[in-house]
């Protein structure tokens, strides 16, 4: 039993990341509403953040702050730092995305992909 479960339980963080990644990716692809697309993109990116953070965890490791005790086991701080950068990038992407959505709503009166594609096709025919 444990031989069967161990590889799964021992790597549960990766399974969680993959589930989250696919939920986010599905929302990006399948949703026509642009706000929902951005939300999906955020879930997708967050799953990657969790991938990095969970790989930085060292068994029995503590927060990487010097304690003075040479026997202390620390978690790897580098992935945290990388993800701090990636979070900033993610926030900026979301901000630019929402700014674009506001402008799209102003000039098209809709933020649904299908509506906008239909409007663009009409314009293409008349021009």
């Amino acid at each position: 039993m444990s031989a069967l479960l161990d590889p799964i339980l021992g790597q549960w963080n990766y399974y969680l990341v993959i589930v989250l990644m696919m939920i986010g990716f599905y929302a990006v692809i399948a949703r026509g509403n642009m706000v929902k697309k951005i939300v999906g993109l955020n879930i997708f990116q967050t799953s990657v953040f969790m991938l990095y953070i969970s790989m930085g965890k060292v068994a029995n490791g503590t927060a990487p702050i010097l304690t003075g005790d040479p026997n202390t086991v620390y978690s790897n701080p580098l992935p945290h730092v990388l993800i701090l950068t990636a979070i900033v990038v993610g926030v900026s992407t979301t901000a630019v995305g929402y700014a674009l959505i506001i402008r799209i709503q102003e000039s098209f009166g809709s933020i649904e992909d299908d509506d906008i594609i239909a409007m663009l096709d009409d314009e293409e025919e008349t021009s």
Partner: protein
Amino acid sequence: MMQHLPILQVLLPLLAAPFAAMLRGRDVAWGIAFITTGTAFLISIALFLEQRALGTTMVYELGNWAAPIGIVYVIDAASALVLPVISGVGFIATLAARQLVAAEIDPRDHSLFYAAWLLTIAGMLGQVTTGDAFNIFVFLEISSLSAYALVAMGSGRDRRALPAAFNYLILGTVGATFYVIGLGLLYMLTGTLNLADLAERLPQVEETRAVFTAMAFIALGLFLKMALFPLHFWLVPAYAHAPSAVTALMASTATKVSVYVLIRLIFGVFGVEFPGLADAVGLAILTLGIAGAFVGTLAAIVETDLKKLFAQSSIAQLGYMAIGIGAMSATGLAAAFLHLFNHALMKGALFLAIGMIAAQAGRATMGTIQGAGKQIPITMTAILFGGLALIGVPLTAGFISKVYLVRALLEQNFWLLAGLTFISSALALAYVWKIIEAAWLQPRPAGAPELSETASQYVPAWIMVFATLGFGIYATPLVEAAFAAAHVFIPSTMGAN
């Protein structure tokens, strides 16, 4: 001072951007952009000449922290060749932007436009210079985020720029995130992000499934970013509806940088002899490349909007670069570098010339240029030369890169691919002829808008045309530089196989 040049050329546009944004005068903002890109261009030429003279790899340690702890900037034959392309095209495009931006963008937005413009150039230069894999991601996002904003600025004239920019943002972010996933897996396996260090440690884990997954994620993410068929759907609307100056800058640089990063990762980190690489990634790139060459060319033939037409042709040209990469040989890689360089010049010339027409007429379509050969002969001739270079007519730079591409394929006995490359190049004649016919063989329709041209309008495009012809007629130094770049990744002793 001299040893700080590798960081200076990235830092200058990065630091100049907020100044351009804050000083809210459009001439001031343009002046800052002009001086900054000009300086960056001079620096990258100095770096290129220095690297060629030394013949070695120059490593700049940020804050004097040695690799792999610190981040290093690497000037080798490959990055030294690509840097002048970006900053050079950036400089000429800035020269042309003064007129194009004045015609197409709300004067209140000019300073912000030039700020985003400088940021995207800084991001691209950073991606090429850095020797750290995560740093590449950060610069990728700097250049992409400002590129989304730049594309969206086309909305003043053409509201279709907004959904185009939004789709570009979604797909661009997905691509960059894929790249980060792959990078995370590599970091997990090796514990390093330094490219040279990664290359050293990867052979120890080369037979693991995680390494193949990482390779697949990185390759896929970069395929999206370089708009390799069939992941190219963001490109055509983004190029077609962006402001003309942005189209010219992005068409000549943005996708090229991703091609360069792909080469750096695939050959520089995994290495050409990495087990499974040539079979999996190489075959995928070759197949998608030739498919893209045909799809792009055929789509260009039926297109009537000139910006869309040449955006489709970009898909085809990226396909040729992909074929060069997929050949997995030194000659193929040199052909990819040559085409990267030459295509930047041709597309720069074409989109700058088309931009000048679009800025006057609102749009540049087959109808707009009908009979325009007599009205604006100098601009139309620039488009003609750009088109001939795209086909690969002798005495243009396009010919040189196609020759080396076909040579690389024949070396590997890919006869069918070489034939298909030749056929798809010849097909490009169809869309170039369509333009020649419309511009010179048809009369100007009555009531068509009056087009004019002044020296300041056609000089930037013609600088690019002269460069295309110059590198086509006297190609030896460029070919040597391209082979030096290829040999960074594939040593010359392996060149024959």
